């Protein structure tokens, strides 16, 4: 396995071979030469260091863990266009194009004009274009700038809504990203948000404390709730070796049913209410609205910025952050170097849970002001895509949180104006992450792969296609 440590810039798959059809992989894995060429992007090659299969590789591609920018010794232009930043932009573009095609495929005008496609193809293509762009324009107006708003305040109201929705996405995304950097796959942000929401809301409506102190306690309760719930996963992982993915998935459901149970008990159910809903939090327990009462934007957004700075500091400037990254890059080496790996595992999960807990607080003390069983919405799962899009860096996650916040905010307006269902956001979001995770695919689609040994590779893939038979 030692060979896999060598970066192979020359071994990029060429566009002709990686056009992305499903039939190709049936053939390609059979020919050794082709295999090695596919897998060894400079970044993925290093991520495959499994010490001869003795340990699991890091759950996160190394491209997400370090600042290595893939790119051969080619021209500056090619470096810019094949760099990870460019791949991210192209991945978003490609996902939007595919999403647009999906929107167009169900559009009435498009299907009408498809009936006479060969008579007047221009009608068909303009119908496709207008169906897709209409939805995306509505998405933009619902998330950033609405020209029909009254005054500057009204025109920028969508942007404020975007920031509000981005708040829990950013903090939960930071939690997932931090765990990624330590090589842990934290799917449990959903459950951590729920546990934080339970504790924070209980402090918010059951205790009656003075202004300031009350909000502080709500925040602390939520953060501790999330940290304990995730820390328990870290503990089980460190002590028993159980896989954190399975544990966090199971913990999500346990938290959800626990919440549903609590909302049917007298301690949590609003008096005189048959629905599972808690009392409203005290006014002293909720985040103040920072830009006036016309926007929902609350103090949680400032705290999300602070959390981003904190995570940046932890990862890049603190000893423990160095230990996290060392464990993430190679747990055995970290152990040999004297790092307490179990302690780092528990600690990184606890901090990740604390960050997700901030999302729970932002939900109950910021936007919702009550506890329901939908307190976490889908923020915990979206946080995974946010962290992946942000390549597990603090500011990348921040930016990705803003982008997905914009999608969420805009999708509501889009559905009202054009009838395009909100689900399209899920499609675009997941496609973005899929494409970002596979840079060779994106580069192949846009024809940006280095033009090395093209002729040789083309021949090889042909032979692979003809000889490929399933084992």
């Amino acid at each position, binding site marked *: 396995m030692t060979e896999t440590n060598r970066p192979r810039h020359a071994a990029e798959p060429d566009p002709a071979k990686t056009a992305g059809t499903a039939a190709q992989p049936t053939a390609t894995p059979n020919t050794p030469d082709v295999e090695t060429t596919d897998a060894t992007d400079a970044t993925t090659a290093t991520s495959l260091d499994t010490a001869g299969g003795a340990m699991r590789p890091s759950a996160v591609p190394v491209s997400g863990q370090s600042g290595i920018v893939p790119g051969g010794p080619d021209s500056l232009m090619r470096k810019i266009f094949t760099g990870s930043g460019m791949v991210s932009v192209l991945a978003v573009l490609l996902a939007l194009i595919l999403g647009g095609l999906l929107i167009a495929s169900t559009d009435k005008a498009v299907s009408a004009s498809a009936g006479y496609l060969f008579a007047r193809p221009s009608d068909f293509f303009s119908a496709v274009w207008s169906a897709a762009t209409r939805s995306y324009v509505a998405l933009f107006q619902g998330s950033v700038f609405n020209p029909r708003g009254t005054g500057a305040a009204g025109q920028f109201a969508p942007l404020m809504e975007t920031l509000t929705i981005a708040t829990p996405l950013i903090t939960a995304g930071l939690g997932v990203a931090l765990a990624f950097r330590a090589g842990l796959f934290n799917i449990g942000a959903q459950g951590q948000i729920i546990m934080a929401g339970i504790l924070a809301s209980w402090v918010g409506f059951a205790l009656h404390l003075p202004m300031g102190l009350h909000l502080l306690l709500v925040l602390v309760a939520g953060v501790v709730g999330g940290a304990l719930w995730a820390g328990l996963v870290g503990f089980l992982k460190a002590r028993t070796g159980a896989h954190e*993915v399975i544990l966090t998935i199971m913990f999500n459901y*346990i938290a959800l049913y626990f919440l549903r149970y609590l909302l049917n008990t007298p301690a949590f159910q609003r008096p005189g209410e048959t629905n599972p809903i808690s009392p409203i939090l005290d006014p002293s327990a909720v985040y103040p609205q920072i830009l006036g009462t016309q926007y929902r934007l609350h103090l949680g957004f400032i705290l999300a910025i602070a959390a981003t700075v904190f995570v940046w500091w932890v990862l890049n400037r603190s000893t423990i952050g160095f230990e996290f990254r060392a464990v993430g890059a190679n747990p055995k080496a970290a152990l040999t170097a004297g790092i307490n790996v179990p302690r780092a595992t528990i600690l990184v999960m606890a901090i990740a849970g604390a960050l997700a807990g901030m999302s729970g607080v932002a939900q109950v003390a910021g936007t919702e002001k009550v506890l329901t069983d939908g307190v976490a919405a889908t923020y915990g799962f979206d946080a995974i895509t946010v962290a992946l899009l942000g390549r597990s860096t603090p500011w990348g996650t921040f930016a990705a949180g803003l982008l997905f916040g914009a999608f969420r905010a805009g999708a509501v307006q889009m559905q009202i104006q054009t009838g395009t269902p909100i689900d399209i956001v899920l499609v675009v979001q997941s496609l973005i992450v899929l494409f970002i995770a596979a840079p060779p695919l994106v580069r192949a689609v846009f024809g940006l792969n280095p033009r090395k040994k093209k002729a040789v590779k083309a021949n090889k893939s042909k032979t692979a296609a003809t000889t490929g038979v399933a084992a």
Partner: protein
Amino acid sequence: MSTTATSPQPGKPQPAPLDGGAPAAKHHHTTVTAKPVTWKLPVTLLVLAVVAFIFFGLMGPHQTAKFGISTGSDFFQLPALEVPAFLGGIVLSVIMLALAGYAVFLKTRNRKVPAWVTIAFIALFVAAFLIWVVGGARTTSISLAGLIAGSVTLAVPLVFGSLSGVLCERVGVVNIAIEGQLLGGAFTAAIIATLTHNPFLGLLAAAIAGALVSMILALFSIKYVVNQIIVGVVLNVLVSGVTGFLFSTVMQADKDKFNSPAHLDPITIPVLGDIPLIGPILFKQSLIGYLMYIAVIVVWVGLFKTKWGLRVRAVGEHPQAADTMGIKVNATRFWNVTLGGAIAGIGGSFFTLVAIDSFTKEISGGRGFIALAALIFGRWNPIGAFFAALLFGFADNLQSIVTIIGTPVPSQFMAMLPYLVTVLAVAGLVGRSRPPAASGIPYVKG
């Protein structure tokens, strides 16, 4: 698969699926439970037995629990089973205490606790729990036949899903996308069965849809070496988004035209189908129900008794060795993952072709993750996964019955049970679950 040869390999030792006979040598010093016999299982059994004795026995209800066995259509009638709850709880928990004591005794002799002890213990615990729940309810009578038949029905998608997971993980690819495969199968089955008025074509289309979802998983995780868990998580979101989008735009616009699938009705085998208790489970199923039993057996035989299965497990345990022996590692992985997806797709079609009469958003409702739990609790073995899925289906069914007959146990805790049990299983408290050694690790030829 071209090489589904049925010739077993007599000379070669097969990696034991249950007791981990020969895990790779390095695992001995990397895993915590490297010692041959640990105290975990005996202690866990003892704690559970004491809990059962206190709650189901000493503090048990004093009513009589009544379990109906025969239904009206059975060809001979059995009287309902009446159990005094207090006495039943005491007797069962004393037997559990004895089993736990036996396990402790074996441990002191440094001998392994045989599997039948654990299985018998679980069965007794479930029975005692059932008596306790029903005995303490407002209505102290339930139909055991209905309970078990309902459990099997709820377990069908779980079984297919966990078989998909077994096939993928045995070959070294973690399949978190079971949920997406189930959902994709359910959606495709609904729309194709509606358009063609033919449920069999719907079933076939569901298998193809599941296979396509799997192919994306295989493409990204094998060809592009993207982390398998990332792909799985993202695929679930993608399938949920695409089916949700098409449901809102196409299906809801014209329900009769796109979302009223033809159904697969239960096929009753004459005489056998009327046997009390067993009849409805084994001989009064829909086509998909029968397929489930066939699939479990075929996958088990395939994995453990054929040349193909030996190769598959070799790829999942030690891909380098398999490669050295001339097995095409990544091709084997690709086709197994695809086959797994097709199986999960069939399981998904159960929602729309049998259980419910149309597709709705998120119809799979997280069952893909319960299937994942079942596969782990079943220790990566098709038969084990089958029984684990039945157990989870039972918990699911009991949850709704508990709500109806009104017991003090909150139904949310019943719903929580599969997940709690899985956490205990992966944490090594109930036996030891060891995944295939190379599961989740991409193979790149050096």
